């Protein structure tokens, strides 16, 4: 009996370790770009075959629970602020002096016409906590030796994707490629990380390109212009009072 137990343990050990490892790798990759806190300037460019538009924003974050985004360009959107606290989201519209509570059904909408959803930017779901992770191989991406990791949603997680595949560099934990699949297993979006640079005291991919697979010539480029990691931000920073004062 004992023998069988040890045999079983021996057989399953690598899987247990692998499972543990995979989650740890995703967590490290996620922590690299998120930090405990971050504050920075992002530029988002929506590219379509015959036009493109740019949005510039300042972003403050603390874990996945607290987010604040201030739009600084274009002129029409300038001054708008989004606040996320846990499950709730508000939008401050300074031109009409109005605080609007945003219902969750708006979260899955594209963010200002881009290929990112509100959810992608405001991290409603967490790639660390809402998925089960499994290493399914090793591949080289852009010259970096990467773990290929499969993410499947946990039973009750409120997530959009049916499956995610992630390529994370083994040494540096760069998220170099992510593939998003729907419930039927069709590849919907591909995200590529590039422009690996030192910024905010870390070396990380500073350019993310989101490509919807079914639309040729469409993509959204998210560029990190400036970032500071792990500078303490009190929870009270993420408040409606502060939303009105950001600039």
């Amino acid at each position: 009996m004992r023998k069988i137990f040890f045999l079983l343990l021996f057989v399953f050990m690598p899987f247990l370790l692998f499972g543990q490892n995979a989650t740890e790798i995703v967590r490290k990759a996620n922590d690299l770009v998120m930090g405990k806190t971050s504050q920075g300037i992002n530029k988002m460019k929506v590219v379509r075959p015959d036009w493109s538009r740019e949005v510039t924003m300042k972003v403050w974050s603390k874990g996945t629970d607290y987010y604040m985004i201030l739009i600084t360009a274009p002129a029409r959107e300038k001054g708008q602020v989004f606040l996320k606290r846990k499950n709730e989201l508000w939008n401050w519209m300074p031109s009409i002096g109005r605080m609007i509570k945003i219902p969750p059904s708006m979260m899955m909408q594209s963010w200002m016409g881009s290929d990112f959803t509100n959810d992608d930017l405001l991290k409603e779901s967490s790639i660390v906590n809402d998925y089960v992770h499994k290493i399914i191989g090793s591949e080289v991406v852009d010259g970096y030796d990467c773990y290929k990791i499969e993410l499947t949603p946990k039973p009750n997680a409120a997530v959009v994707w049916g499956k995610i595949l992630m390529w994370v560099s083994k040494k540096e934990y760069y998220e170099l490629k992510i593939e998003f699949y729907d419930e039927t297993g069709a590849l919907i979006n591909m995200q590529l990380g590039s422009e690996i640079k030192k910024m905010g005291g870390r070396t990380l991919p500073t350019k993310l390109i989101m490509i919807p697979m079914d639309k040729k010539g469409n993509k959204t480029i998210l560029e990190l212009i400036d970032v500071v990691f792990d500078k303490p931000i009190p929870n009270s920073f993420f408040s409606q009072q502060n939303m009105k004062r950001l600039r």
Partner: protein
Amino acid sequence: MRIKIVLLFITVFTLSAKAQLSPFDYGGYAKYLFSSTRFPGTTERYSDHLIHLRLNTKWYATDALTAALELRFRGYYGETVENTKHFIDLIKTPRDWVNLDAVLWNKKKTVGYLEVDRFWLDWVKNDFELTLGRQRIAWGTALVWNPTDLFNPLNVLDFDYEELPAVDAVRAQYYTGPVTKVDLAFKPAREKRNVILAGLWSINAFDYDFNLIAGMRDERWIFGGSWAGDILTGGFRGEVTVSEAPNRDYTNLVYEALGESSLSSFDKPLVAVALSGDYTFPGSFYIHTELLYNNNGKTKNTFLFYKEATSLGMLSAARWSIYQEFSYDITPLTRGSLFGIFNPDDKSYVIVPFVTYSVATNWDLLLIAQIFEGDPLTEFGEFGTSFYLRLKYSF
């Protein structure tokens, strides 16, 4: 080690240098609006042109003190101007305290009007905020009708005034938490009847925002509450107000001839309820329904009570109003919308289809129609049909 410190110093220094923001900020837009209107009972269409300019300026005097000045200019030219008696009175913003506006010209076919639309000073100390001047105090949670917006009720059909009206007031806010506050505001006026004093207390629980309000408006007590949250991920909001019975001995010859009693003579407390629900489907299709109920609202001859309703702080003279909207992003640059407001009692309605198109960065095109239908003297029967085309440049 030393090198690291030096590097760190340089990093911090450059970051803080980047963080230096100008104490002045400005923005605004220039719009050109073409309109073509046909009033009921007439055969000709009137064509009009409007140049609408806005300049917003802000001065961040210190960390605690901010000042804002926003100017709005409208220059009209056209046939409605020519054929409407005292056209200027229709576009002038009535103020109860100081005007801060100027009629730059007033000719047969053209009018130019400049006004100070916002002008406030804001002072913050810890959780306390004091705002003085022409400002917008928006307490409502619903998206079309806001009975709890006691200070600056708005007109949903005035699509060309995106900023919505402001009010001259003193406002003190104390933030009791990250998303909750106590808000007190006072609007002085030359006429006692136009003075408003009111407070709001907001809390957040079960992922809902709740507000309670109490105040004095139109020399009558008013109490109310509102909420904003979601049901099955769709937005769910509502507002309720109850105000003292106006009980005023008022009538006029028209009311008497029609056998109607005035809204002001209503001898029971006034109740207004707004309910709002919306849902965004994957793929950007958006649906929004809103209801407004006034217990003293009229079920016929509603058109005649419009002005009186406004003076009582009612958002409509009708007993029931139903708003329905559908929107869809035809492309990321083009949004198509259709909304209607229906009066179920007199069967009159307005239907507003519109399309917005982002021509280029900062350039937006709007095509909109307002189709009013109804019998004479119904809520929407007297306004005809208008088509508009607008080009907007934002800076």
